[in-house]
């Protein structure tokens, strides 16, 4: 057989195995046999999932896929990214086209109850917010009484907007637009004083203004949009792997383990650090992995802070403040259960 033919036969073999094992074996075994993690991501969302002209993916959600691949397969590059629309994402997961969905998806009761999927935690606390032009120097959403508000029609943002103003006894005039781009243009043209959408979206939209520094995104968040990775509901072992990779990245930040110092962390005397990097505790084996699982994840993509700052924070053009997504001990609400 030629190399190509052998490779082709190998692929066929792997496909057969994976097809068979999708039913019988667990996702972790399937992923191992296939040698790659099939990870569902957004087709293109600034800071969260982007593909460059060489076909290389990057972003906050993309890095989570890589972290899971590093933990489960030993290699952050063994990921096949599957770009998915919002409509097809949960079907793709249920039908086994992907092993993991890491695509800015909001955790809600209905999704878990109706779709046979489980959210493995929260990687990003998003929520609806407001953007104003700097001129009036508004610093709080409670100062928006009587303003004209641009909003995309047919979104939950429109309903949240009404609820927020009613709850705070404030009046507003709605300026509805069919697309986010139109709504942004409405703000830029002065048809409204305020634009409302999810906070992460507002930061991306702000970059499209002629002078981004003239617009201010208010710190108030008026709705809950907890985004997180999703697995099938019938595989608790794989669900646990995904869940604890997320917790490991958050705990790594909390104990000070970074992609830069991960190797020397093995020599630390601190029990929290030693358990995280796997020189103590034997925790990886309990997840069906080896004990260096979390160490590899952190080495590959960095701890939570590194992933955040690189993709959406101070080292990215978005520059989104950590806000809710800061550690519980540092001003936010990120809290991961202990690795022990």
């Amino acid at each position, binding site marked *: 057989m030629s190399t190509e033919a052998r490779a082709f036969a190998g692929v066929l073999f792997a496909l057969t195995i994976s097809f068979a094992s999708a039913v019988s074996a667990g996702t972790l075994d399937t992923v191992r046999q296939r040698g790659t993690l099939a990870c569902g991501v957004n087709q293109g969302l600034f800071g969260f999932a982007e593909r460059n002209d060489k076909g290389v993916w990057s972003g906050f959600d993309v890095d989570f896929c890589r972290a899971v691949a590093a933990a489960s397969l030993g290699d952050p590059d063994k990921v096949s990214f599957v770009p998915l629309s919002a409509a097809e994402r949960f079907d793709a997961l249920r039908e086994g086209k992907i092993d993991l969905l890491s695509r800015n998806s909001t955790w809600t009761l209905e999704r878990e109850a109706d779709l046979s999927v489980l959210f493995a935690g929260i990687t990003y606390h998003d929520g609806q917010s407001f953007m104003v032009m700097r001129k009036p120097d508004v610093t709080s959403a409670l100062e928006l009484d009587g303003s004209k508000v641009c909003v995309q029609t047919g979104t939950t943002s429109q309903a949240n907007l009404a609820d927020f103003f009613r709850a705070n006894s404030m009046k507003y005039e709605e300026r509805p637009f069919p697309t986010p781009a139109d709504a942004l243009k409405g703000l830029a043209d002065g048809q409204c004083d305020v634009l409302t959408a999810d906070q992460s979206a507002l930061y991306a939209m702000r970059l499209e203004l002629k002078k981004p520094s003239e617009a201010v995104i208010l*710190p108030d968040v008026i709705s809950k949009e907890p985004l997180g990775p999703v697995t099938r509901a019938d595989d608790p072992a794989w669900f646990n792997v995904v869940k604890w990779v997320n917790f490991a990245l958050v705990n790594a930040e909390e104990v000070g383990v970074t992609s830069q110092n991960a190797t020397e962390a093995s020599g630390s005397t601190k029990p929290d650090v030693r358990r995280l990097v796997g020189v103590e505790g034997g925790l990886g084996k309990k997840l069906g992995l080896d004990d260096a699982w979390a160490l590899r994840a952190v080495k590959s993509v960095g701890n939570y802070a590194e992933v955040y700052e690189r993709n959406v924070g101070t080292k990215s053009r978005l520059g989104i403040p950590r806000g809710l997504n800061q550690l519980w001990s540092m001003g936010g609400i990120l809290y991961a259960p202990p690795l022990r």
Partner: protein
Amino acid sequence: MFSGRNLSFCAIGAAVLTSVFLAGVFVARPAIAQPMPIGGMGSVLDIGDEPGRISTEETVISDGPFARQMVFFRTTEAPGTVIIHTSERFLYIVQPKNRALRYGIGVGRDGFQWSGLVRISRKAEWPDWTPPAEMIQRQPYLPRFMAGGPGNPMGARALYLGETVYRIHGTNQPETIGSAVSSGCFRLANGDVIDLYARIPLGTKVVVRHGASI
């Protein structure tokens, strides 16, 4: 107990250096010399001080993540408290209702040497600068004394932290905001430190926090 080398970079004058030995009630953790937390420092922007380079009162960080802005910030500290997160390169003034006014800062070598709780003990406009001997050894071109002004590396304002040698100050190198730098403590662009100075009275509580070290 105190290593002069580690403590002296952000000292403005020798008088302040001696007062460190009086470090007392407000210092939760004494400013002992300890290994540099590598994770906290990240890559250090190793540029020398540039006495004489002019930076005016109008210089603020107006764009990007290190621009002054109101952010969500959950804390049990009272409004008005200043919180410095060295690993993030941010200084926060706590506001009511889970928010804070956030400033981008540059953190000098000495800023990483210490964390704790102090109060603002003194405020000065356009402070003079007396580089300590160790600093002159490293950068022999530095003057022995420099009067306060737009070309002074200490910048437009200084807020002194308790009885320690640490301080929040301006800079004539605004491009270093957001970085770990080789000298100084906690630096802000001159326009931003002036804004901060006007909001922070004497006696304000200041909490300095590092990221954890392994």
